[in-house]
């Protein structure tokens, strides 16, 4: 069981004009909306972080084993706004039944624009997590569970023992997602997420139109038990518990009972590092796609780059990063990395689209933005990037 805890650093919309001569340390105030972030952080803390960490602590005491990844984006917000939330996670992660997983700290597409900087970011994220939780971190995720050939080798160079990846049919072919894999002839172990079983809980649990609703722990434990292979990897947003599925959906009771039902069916729970140590010598190979896979949408990058607005922002992300590099200023480079955050593409997936994926995207779009209208959101979001790039004119001389 893997969950990732993340809160985005949201852009400030509508975009604010950045006055000429604004010093680097004041630029962030024009780009990012701390107030909005605080609002959503508090909301999610109340619905999810506090009750879910308490529930999982209780489960961990009863033998439940899970792993948790933290984006630095979340950790910074927790440090600023809620020691209680952070303490809750620290206490949870102190359990020997919980493993801390490294996540790309900016929750960004940094690997697309600068793979070497990505490696540095992963190494610093690992150190930060080890310092914060006082545990060794050997397993990793990236951003949106992205995995591609170059990212695989970057993570291997970083010295991680294993990583999560999405386990879609089109990526794995005949292979079941229920084994520990390696890219041929390489060392870094891969645990593919079982997307159907994961999405049964992650997306469909409270969908009353779903033929299997209400999902019972007995049925779900049977599905897990009946899986062919060695290991079932389930991956969710941590916010699934209490926020995506509210308390009254029964999600907490479900997880508590699931622990019992899995035990009854003799399903052992393993930490990711235990899984690869125990099952990683089976010789299963899965060449990692050069195009990359992610746990969002259909598993490819179409979810993030499927419409023209997303492609426009993606280009601006590159330009913003390149312009910041020209300044040589680490503080500006850091801001550019925040601007690479994947959420800025996730939040506009709905543009020109309809259907369940667009609904998911729109769900994550701050409701405060909708008063700008569809086109207004797209225009103002791009304007944030344009303003940043132009503000660096003097600094990049």
């Amino acid at each position, binding site marked *: 069981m893997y969950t990732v805890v993340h809160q985005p650093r949201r852009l400030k919309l509508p975009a604010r004009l950045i006055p000429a001569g604004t010093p680097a340390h004041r630029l962030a105030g024009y780009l990012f909306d701390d107030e909005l972030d605080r609002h959503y952080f508090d909301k999610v803390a109340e619905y999810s972080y506090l009750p879910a960490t308490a529930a999982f602590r209780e489960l961990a005491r009863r033998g439940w084993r899970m792993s948790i990844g933290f984006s630095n984006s979340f950790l910074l917000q927790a440090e600023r706004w809620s020691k209680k939330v952070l303490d809750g996670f620290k206490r949870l992660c102190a359990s020997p039944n919980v493993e801390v997983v490294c996540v790309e700290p900016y929750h960004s597409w940094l690997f697309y624009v600068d793979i070497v900087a990505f490696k540095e970011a992963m190494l610093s994220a690992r150190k930060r997590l080890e310092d914060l939780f006082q545990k060794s971190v050997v397993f990793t995720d990236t951003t949106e569970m992205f995995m591609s050939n170059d990212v695989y080798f970057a993570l291997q160079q970083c010295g991680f023992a294993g990583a999560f990846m999405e386990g879609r049919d089109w990526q794995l*072919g*005949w*292979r079941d997602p229920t*084994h520990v894999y390696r890219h*041929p002839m390489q060392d870094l172990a891969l645990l593919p997420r079982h997307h159907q079983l994961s999405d049964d809980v992650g997306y469909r649990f409270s969908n009353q139109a779903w033929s299997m609703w209400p999902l019972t722990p007995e049925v779900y434990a049977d599905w897990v038990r009946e899986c062919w292979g060695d290991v079932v990897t389930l991956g969710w947003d941590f916010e699934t518990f209490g926020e995506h599925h509210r308390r009254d959906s029964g999600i907490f009771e479900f997880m508590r009972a699931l622990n019992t039902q899995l035990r009854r069916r003799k399903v052992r729970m393993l930490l990711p590092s235990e899984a690869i140590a125990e099952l990683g010598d089976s*010789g299963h*190979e899965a*060449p990692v796609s050069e195009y990359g896979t992610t746990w969002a949408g259909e598993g490819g990058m179409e979810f993030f780059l499927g419409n023209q607005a997303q492609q426009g922002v993606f280009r601006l992300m590159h330009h913003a990063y390149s312009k910041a590099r020209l300044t040589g200023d680490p503080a500006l480079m850091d801001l550019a990395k925040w601007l690479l955050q994947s959420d800025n593409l996730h939040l506009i997936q709905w543009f020109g689209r309809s259907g369940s994926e667009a609904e998911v995207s729109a769900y994550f779009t701050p409701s405060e933005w909708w008063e700008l209208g569809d086109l207004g959101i797209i225009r103002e979001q791009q304007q944030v990037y344009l303003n940043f790039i132009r503000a660096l004119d003097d600094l990049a001389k």
Partner: protein
Amino acid sequence: MNLDPRRTVFVILSFEGPDVYSQAGGLGVRVKGLARSLARAGYLTYLYFCGDPDLPGEEEQEGGRLRYRRWCQWISAMHRGGVYDGEEGKIRDWNSSLPPSLIENVIAPAISAGNHVVVLGEEWHTSWSMKLISDALYYRGLRDRVVMLWNANNTYGFNRIDWTGLNFASTVTTVSRYMKFRMWEWGQNPIVIPNGISRESIVEADPQVVEDLRSSAGADHFWFKIGRFDPDKRWLMAVSAAAQLKRRGNTVKLVMRGGKEPHGAEVMNHAQHQGLVVRNAPGPPDASGMAALLRDSKQADLINLTSFLKDSLVMNVYAACDAVLANSGHEPFGLVGLEVMAAGGIAVTGSTGEDYAEGYRNAVVLETDDPIEIVTELSVLKEKPRLVAGLRKRGRATARDYVWEKVIEQLLLRIDFAAARQAVTGPEEPQPRAAARRASRATPPRG
């Protein structure tokens, strides 16, 4: 490419194989014959198949040149209904466990020893593993040392094949021009390499045994039909033809050996409704047993044999009867027809994959599914004994052209083509030793 038997290793991948447990149709017979013939030609040959769970996982034959590798036995132990019982689980196990084992234990050592390796996959079940083996070889830097061919023996499972991946990994072949045309429907243009028969199947039946069987049958028309109870085999057409002859006042003895398939009940029901007297009997152990059964079944028009028949008995029956009805409506190759020819019998084939059959030259080739066609053709043959003798003689000559040794010659030539398409480079040829140079007598001594 020099496919010298001393420097070439063949690997055959097939769900069906030589074990009784592993045989369901022509594929098991094919791989058994092909593997044995390759080994007898001197090639080290590995045959991976879903073997009998009670037999050893590894077994050597032909003085160690033929090596059986029985796969998925732990699943077969729980699915004892034959090779395709537990099929989906076997596919998964095959895909996940066979490629790494094959590469590490067979292919990589063979290449290190300077050998060529040829991998032959059979049927849709192995299509994924071909791609996996190709991928794994690529990542080990060995893909350019292995020729990979995948063969379609039937149209089963075509909807599940990733054709793009399979074509990328291997050269696709099939067993007849009919199959080639059927595969055009799937956007494929395979190379045709025919099936073969073993040299041992070309036999001269004992005339006394043949005569004994014929006289015991004691009918105007003595026919035999063998195969699965599958509508494609046109059992109903054969039964209807027998019934028509009976209604015309002829005596008919139609001996049938089908399988356990449910269509069998339909066939028997149809026979009784057509007015044929049916007798069900276990398969006799030998020709004298069969003769006794025939003598004891004077009243029966149709004898349905309900258990296994030995190859030797089948060959005698092929030779003895007036016609063997291999009248399928869809036959990828039609091995039975060729085996009938090899035994000196009269094969009545359909007109799909039986490339070897030529009407009135070496067989009776049916063009329709109308029972009257069988009645007419076989009634005419009764009046033309010289034509019948010619068909038997030329049939046997045809069979000789399809013995595995000759088919393997074609296969080896096709492997060259496949190797060129797959950019396979052979191991370095051993360099001829340079002739020792002698000092010219004219060379003045130094110093």
